[in-house]
């Protein structure tokens, strides 16, 4: 065991894992974070806390992580490379560990152009793969500079992202391999709205045996509207939405119900796919739907580990 988090224990025990996601608010109202956590409590092993997602200032992911711990839910804090240099990041990792946070997910971060401070400077002192290396070094007792840490090293279960829907397609598998080489233990994929492309990516992943080196959690996002699906397809870089999904939603009488049904079918399908270790359900601003999805996908109650 690297950190002994719920998520790690679940994955190591070979159970199909479920993780959720909470976007901290654009305010200091910590109750919002706990409210969302309570809605999903018991349905996921851990909950990602986004780090100023889409470059919009929000309650910090580590502070939100502490709020989750207080609510007896396991946090998985995201760290992006956009806003902090290696000094600040390592300081935050030590701080997170001191608060009892065990899962950390390394990301590049959306460019600040999309956020509410487009005139800011970005950092990118290290990139996401170098951040994984840094986290791996820290849990072995070394700072990035090579200096040895005092006392017990922090216990970290290291996550990363993978995007099978970005280009160049073949390189996406190599990039996952680099992340595994850097020390990542698990990855969560971009939300999966094109199953055919995901399957092709998984084939390449299996051909390289990567699923045996890194736990892969497929990203699931229940769709609420046709407009949202088309927006993701047309305007979000690195996202794909297949035509059959759009058509199904267009034909549906109750679009939200169809979106949920689609997510459940995807999970059922993924449960049987070799190399998929679990799902990461991203129902941002729709957290209350997560229990229904988990139950109807036959993943509740969660196994005891």
């Amino acid at each position, binding site marked *: 065991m690297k950190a002994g988090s719920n998520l790690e224990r679940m994955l190591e025990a070979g159970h199909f894992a479920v993780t959720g996601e909470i976007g901290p608010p654009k305010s200091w109202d910590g109750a919002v974070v706990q409210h969302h956590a309570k809605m999903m409590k018991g349905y996921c092993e851990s909950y990602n806390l986004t780090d100023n997602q889409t470059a919009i200032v929000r309650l910090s992911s580590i502070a939100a992580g502490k709020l989750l711990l207080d609510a007896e839910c396991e946090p998985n804090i995201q760290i992006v490379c956009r806003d902090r240099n290696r000094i600040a990041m390592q300081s935050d990792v030590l701080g997170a560990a001191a608060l009892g946070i065990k899962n950390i997910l390394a990301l590049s971060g959306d460019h600040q152009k999309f956020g509410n401070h487009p005139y800011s400077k970005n950092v990118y002192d290290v*990139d996401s793969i170098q951040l994984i290396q840094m986290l791996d070094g820290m849990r072995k007792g070394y700072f990035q500079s090579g200096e040895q840490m005092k006392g017990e090293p922090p216990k970290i279960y290291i996550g990363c992202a993978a995007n099978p829907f970005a*280009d160049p397609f073949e390189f996406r598998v190599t990039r996952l391999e680099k992340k595994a080489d850097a020390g990542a233990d698990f990855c969560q994929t971009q939300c999966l709205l094109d199953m055919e492309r995901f399957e092709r990516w998984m084939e390449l992943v299996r051909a390289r045996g990567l699923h045996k080196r890194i736990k892969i959690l497929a990203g699931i996002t229940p769709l609420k509207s046709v407009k949202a699906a088309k927006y993701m397809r047309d305007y979000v*870089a690195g996202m794909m939405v297949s035509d059959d999904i759009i058509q199904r939603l267009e034909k549906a009488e109750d679009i939200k119900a169809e979106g949920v049904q689609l997510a459940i079918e995807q999970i059922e399908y993924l449960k049987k796919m070799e190399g998929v270790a679990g799902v990461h359900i991203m129902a941002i601003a729709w957290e209350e739907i997560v229990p229904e999805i988990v139950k109807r996908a036959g993943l509740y109650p969660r196994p005891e580990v």
Partner: protein
Amino acid sequence: MIVAERKPIDEILGFLSKHQKIMLLGCGGCVTVCLAGGEKEVGILGSELAMARAKEGRPLEVVQRTIERQCDFEYFEGIRHEVKDVDAILSLACGIGIQTVAEAFPDKVVWPGVNTKFLGVNQNVGVWAERCQACGQCVLDKTGGICPVARCSKSIFNGPCGGSQHGKCEVSADTDCAWALIHDRLTRLGQVDSMREILPVKDWSHSRDGGPRKLVREDLTLESGK
């Protein structure tokens, strides 16, 4: 070359509002090549400024000069006698030239006439693109001759990130993804496997982050001392 763009006329007129006589100083280096601050642009801007001020009924005398290079102290000697008689110098050189003018004439007001944009290349008529950030430690040997520091919006070393699609950057559909370019070029050269290697954390102390940089070459300083 250093690519610059002339500042808007109103901003420049604002700088010069209290002056009666100025020297408008062009540079024969990069800004001539990128059509921002050479002899031709000095002529155009000189006329524009004089006309604008004449219209206000507060004439401005503009002494127009263009020297070989404004980033070399030796070229200022030829204009020193004329600088005495002007209220200020409006330099159309890049930021380096403007600062050298200020250093060469410590008692004279110096105004910037251009915004220095980047180190880049002329791609087409009227189009320039950034190519180098002078980070101080070149990695082009590992990236197929395409710079991720200057050309990736996130300056990452192990790209492309998840925002790369159809060869374009998440920042804009007009921006090529530098890592997609690197990937395609290394593929063409039969070297794409080299992208499996993790490029290590960069030593930014060679860049601006190490403080203002200075290069001293002892082989040359010793020689000049002889």
